[in-house]
């Protein structure tokens, strides 16, 4: 097997003494993609936080390009190619849109020009303060800001949550372009299971902190029984919800 870009080996992690994740083993190859599904509170965000180094790992190992990074700090991981879009978006309120983009930028193919090409709306709003943006604009900015660090792997935590359908479409288009065209690997946590599965190659479903199911995304998309059992999803209803 080729060396994975990111691998988790039997990871147990949580906050302080509380254990949230247990026995997590997964791998994302270069340019690969993984959808993480699961009900609220099963530990999806915690899994991304663990990959970024924000949780306490009490067992197992997090490997990045063959190297054990279990004890490395978040800023070190970010500099080595992990890009993170937090569920809370976490735009810096006292920075302008352009400052939000530039503050952590690193050289690479994603620069201001490329970002404004992907999200023209951010160009229009580039002088606005971070706290004067709509929800959709904040989400675009959070993704754009992570891209400006030119990551090899992008961690996206519910990027479509609470957005109007037209913006969801715009954002999924952007995600598709930046990953398919540019070959950026990604891990996507998403409530819109259908969208997540259509964007990704592989998928896992979490249940109470452990992996309850793994499949290729296109297979899981057709497996209505499993989806309904594990995340209570009825595909037809989800689709008509738009």
């Amino acid at each position: 097997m080729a060396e994975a870009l990111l691998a988790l080996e039997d990871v147990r992690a949580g906050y302080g003494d509380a254990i949230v994740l247990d026995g997590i083993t997964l791998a994302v190859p270069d340019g690969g993609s993984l959808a993480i599904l699961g009900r609220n509170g099963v530990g999806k965000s915690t899994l991304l936080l663990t990959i970024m180094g924000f949780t306490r790992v009490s067992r197992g190992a997090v490997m990045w390009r063959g190297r054990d990074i279990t004890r490395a700090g978040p800023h070190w991981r970010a500099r080595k190619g992990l890009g993170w879009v937090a569920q809370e978006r976490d735009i810096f309120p006292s920075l302008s849109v352009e400052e939000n983009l530039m503050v952590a930028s690193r050289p690479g193919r994603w620069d201001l020009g490329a970002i404004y090409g992907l999200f023209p709306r951010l160009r229009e709003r580039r002088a606005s303060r971070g706290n004067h943006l709509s929800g959709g604009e904040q989400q675009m900015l959070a993704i754009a800001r992570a891209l400006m660090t030119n990551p090899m792997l992008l961690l996206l935590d519910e990027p479509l949550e609470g957005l109007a359908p037209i913006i969801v479409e715009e954002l999924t288009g952007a995600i598709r372009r930046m990953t398919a065209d540019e070959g950026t690997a990604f891990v996507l946590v998403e409530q819109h299971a259908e969208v997540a599965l259509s964007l990704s190659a592989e998928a896992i479903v979490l249940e109470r902190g452990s992996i309850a199911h793994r499949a290729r995304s296109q297979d899981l998309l057709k497996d209505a029984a499993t989806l309904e059992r594990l995340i209570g999803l009825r595909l037809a209803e989800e689709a008509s919800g738009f």
Partner: protein
Amino acid sequence: MIASAFGVLFDGFAYGMLLFLLSVGLSVTLGMMNFVNLAHCSFAMLGGFVTVTLTNDLGWPFLASLPLAFLSAALVSIALERVLYRRLYGASDLAQCLLTIGIVFVSVAVAAYIYGTIQQPVNLPSYLRGSVAIMGQSLGVYRLFLIGVSIVITAVLVAALEFTRFGAQVRAAVDNQRMARGLGIDVDRVFAVTFALGSGLAGLGGALAIEIVGLDHAFAFTYLIYVLIVVAVGGLGSIAGSFVAASLLGISDMAGKYYFPELGAFLIYFVMVALLMWRPLGLFGRR
């Protein structure tokens, strides 16, 4: 009395600029990093003693000693930050107070041991002494120099914070530490550098203060109160707030001593109480 009103204003503003240099670093560490560093004026005192030693014992020119006052305070603060402060970043205010007030006691004892308990003299070069007449007013040259230095420093600070990448990283780290780290910003380093800059400015302020308010072993305690007042009135973390508050307090302190000698040094406290009742978060405070 009327004739000297401008003179009082001028002296008060110069004194305010001194308070600004002494306090701006504390405002930044307290407001941005949430660290209660009561030992801030120990760094100022260190700068003062460096200048005294360099000029009186080693014959350095006064101006040449100022960068060293800045540097020594900055370097000592880096060492302390590494060894002690960093461990208490997440700790309670009380723990931080206890540690840093302990450092004040130590610094005062060390200063008394080395320099004794007398006021330290400083030799100003002749071009900083005396006064010049501007528009019929006689203005102290040294105070003009003090005001000039402070305004230049304020401009540089504001520009650095607003227009450089490092300044943006400081603001980002203050807004949201977790996200800043998650984007690859070395927040610990950003804070350490900011802290060192603030302490260095205190060191510079301590050196510049000798001519105006004197220097002895107790400086770290005496000026802690003034510096805390400036920070509280100005609003935590606001450079502009510190500037305005320091000017107001400097002027009112000077005016109190001139016009209401019986109130003496108390006017500054009345001004503080009044301002804080009007704006509890400080003039420019946001939280």
